[in-house]
């Protein structure tokens, strides 16, 4: 590489973004070229200055808002709602099955009712449907 080509590549070299061959070649050149060394020093000063100009951390209010939202996201709200919905649907299904059984399978319904009443009286609770 010529001196001018190396000068053009110093930004990449400074960032360590060149391949091994390019890095070796530029390192050797920089060791003997005051102009390129000065360029590298300037890149280094620029980089340090930009880092120093780092602003303050994220505003506390913004962070708090986001953390509050994050805590909400973390809550198993969705899962609870899903479980409730499934339980409700199951309850409706059982009731509908009971109604259908009473209408279309009265014998089966009576025997199930008898079993429930028997279990209830064993437990000392009075059955609802006699």
């Amino acid at each position, binding site marked *: 590489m010529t001196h001018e080509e190396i000068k053009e590549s110093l930004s*990449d070299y400074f960032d360590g*973004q060149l391949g091994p061959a390019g890095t070796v070649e530029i390192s050797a050149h920089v060791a003997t070229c005051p102009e390129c060394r000065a360029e590298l020093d300037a*890149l280094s*000063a620029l980089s340090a200055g930009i880092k120093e100009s780092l602003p303050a951390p*994220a505003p506390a209010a*913004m962070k708090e808002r986001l953390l509050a939202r994050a805590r909400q996201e973390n809550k198993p709200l969705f899962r609870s709602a899903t479980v409730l919905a499934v339980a409700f649907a199951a309850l409706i299904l059982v009731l509908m099955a009971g109604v259908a059984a009473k209408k279309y399978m009265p014998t089966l319904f009576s025997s199930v009712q008898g079993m429930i009443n028997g279990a209830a009286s064993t437990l000392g609770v009075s059955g609802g449907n006699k």
Partner: protein
Amino acid sequence: MSPEELIEKYSDMAYCLALRLTGNATEAEDLAEEALIKAMKGLPGFRGDSEPGVWVSRIVANCWKNQLRSPRLAFWRRLGGFNSTDGEEQTVDPPDPAPGPELQLEGASRREAFEKVLNSLEPRDRAIVALRELDGRSYTEIAGILSIPEGTVRSRLSRARKKLRGLLGGFLEEK
């Protein structure tokens, strides 16, 4: 990673990048917040293909690009940063603009001078410098985050640095 961990770990980084991209604290706060909310929502689908910081940076950059396209911030487009078609690369880089008369560094502190010259860069160049210098991203990562070719990252970063050095002059030697 839980949403809380995401916020704890990346909100400063996201805000810092947003501040560099927008050059304005109020807009930076809006941008960082929007991006982090998107990141929280996208967290269940994040497969860890890239480092989480790169992923969050990409979301910030995408939100910013969307904002640039919005009518509210249409004036940014006139500054010549990203074109309006999906952030595709322009075929020819515009010439390096001369410093505007508004850039008065006389009497400014070193920190103020750096702030001013950084904000004088085109939005895309500012994004590249921010991702490289503040976030330590590689050229490949920057190219991925901003959806531009790696060669463009290389050339624009080099050019932006030359411009910054030219503008800063003696401020570079100050400590």
